[in-house]
């Protein structure tokens, strides 16, 4: 598998007057088709890391290298179409569900792939949803899945997912996991998914990144991470997972 993204010595500080390190020495790679679960206690900067990968936030030090080219030499617009971020709080754009699904088509003047939209809706348990309905009237779980499909319509090479099943019941969360895993296998899309659900992480991911002690503490194949974590902090985390919400 070829490496798409290299994260090189990333540092992020927070606070305006008194700055403190959120994380430092973060080094990692994202390979094509790799499915990564990011785990860790609240406040370790998992969501911030995702936002940095999407260039919606910037690192204080270090580099992000996409196929050999630094983010500093890249057009943020093109970068974001390759690595697309889906936020935890789904935001519906004005108009109907269909208008939301057509966002990518309108933004990038691409043909609207109606069949793909239908397939993804069905795959996420939304086959009976009236797409002419106002998007703002959808339930939290429906909005979350529409936001996810809206991003998938862009066919990015990496999907950056920030707790995208947090507002779904177990059955629908499972459907989304399956759909995303299938999508990754068929399209070769890499997933970088922040989750607090260890069962979910074990079910979809091939690699686990564990954030703790203000850094990316472990980067292991998922089965290995859960069977034999390298650090005490990870072992404790697996035994006593932290409560959700960062």
């Amino acid at each position, binding site marked *: 598998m070829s490496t798409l993204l290299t994260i090189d010595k990333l540092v992020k500080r927070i606070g305006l007057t008194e700055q403190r390190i959120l994380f430092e020495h973060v080094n990692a790679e994202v390979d094509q088709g790799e499915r990564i679960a990011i785990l860790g206690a609240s406040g370790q900067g998992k969501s911030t890391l995702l936002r940095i990968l*999407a*260039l*919606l*936030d*910037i690192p204080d030090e270090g580099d992000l290298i996409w196929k050999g080219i630094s983010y500093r030499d890249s057009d*943020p*617009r*093109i970068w*974001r*179409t390759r690595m*697309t*971020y*889906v*936020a935890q*709080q789904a*935001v519906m*754009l*004005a108009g109907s569900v269909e208008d939301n699904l057509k*966002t*990518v088509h309108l*933004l*990038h003047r691409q043909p609207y792939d109606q069949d793909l939209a239908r397939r993804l809706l069905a795959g996420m348990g939304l086959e009976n949803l009236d797409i002419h309905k106002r998007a703002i009237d959808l339930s939290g779980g429906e909005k979350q899945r529409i*936001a996810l499909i*809206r*991003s998938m319509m*862009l066919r990015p090479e990496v999907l950056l997912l920030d707790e995208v099943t947090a507002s779904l019941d177990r059955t629908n969360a499972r459907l989304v996991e399956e759909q995303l895993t299938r999508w990754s296998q068929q399209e070769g899309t890499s997933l970088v998914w922040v989750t607090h659900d260890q069962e979910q992480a074990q079910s979809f991911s091939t690699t686990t990144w564990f954030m703790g002690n203000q850094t990316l503490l472990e980067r292991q194949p998922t089965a290995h991470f859960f069977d034999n974590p390298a650090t005490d902090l990870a072992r404790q985390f697996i035994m006593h997972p932290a409560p959700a919400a960062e």
Partner: protein
Amino acid sequence: MSLIALSFTIIFVMVTMLISVWQKLDLEKDIAIGTVRSAVQLLLVGYVLQFIFNSDHPVLIIAIVGFMIIVASINAGKRGKGLRWISLYIAAAITVTELLMMGLLLGLGIVEPTPQYIIPLSGMTIGNAMVVSGLFLNQMKREVESSKGEIESLLALGATPRRAFQDVLKRSVKSSMIPTIDGMKTVGLVQLPGMMTGMIIAGADPVEAVRYQILIVFAFTSSAAITSILLSMMTYRQWFTSDMRLRSL
């Protein structure tokens, strides 16, 4: 109005002072400063206008209109703290609006090219543009705060800052124009505008006063639209960093 009659108006100030003392509002100092300032400022403006009207020199007209634009831009610029060169952008928007308005009014022969028409009409146009600019910037700040998720969702999908901001800009332009449009709907029914009232008190024919007021109301609508749209076009990039991230002001 005679000077004696004018001096009697100090009674209104005295009444306000007495109420302040009686109710312990502690406003006496502010009222005194406000009274002296407004009297001195207005008398000075009166003499300056008298001088310009008598000289009828284009340079003096341009100078006073320029002064109005500078004061209006600095004042409205306070609503856009954190935005670089905002007063300059406002000045540019107001100047273009003023040039268009005066170009139309004078070019079509709607008003005569004399200081008596140009200066008051410019003052009203610039004043309205200043209010619209302030409203626009205030609304933009609120919109950016409340629509951060929407803007970033679009950026994350590869939208340009302009596209990600399109709806926010539209809503802010609309919101900044609402007071002008509402004023247009109720003018004469709810409030009698200052200029028309002033003309009538000064002895002008009420119908003639109304004609000028109609001109002002229509000109205000147009100047509000031009100012807020120009300002939105010139400043939207200020809300983003050079690498297309939303800036927090």
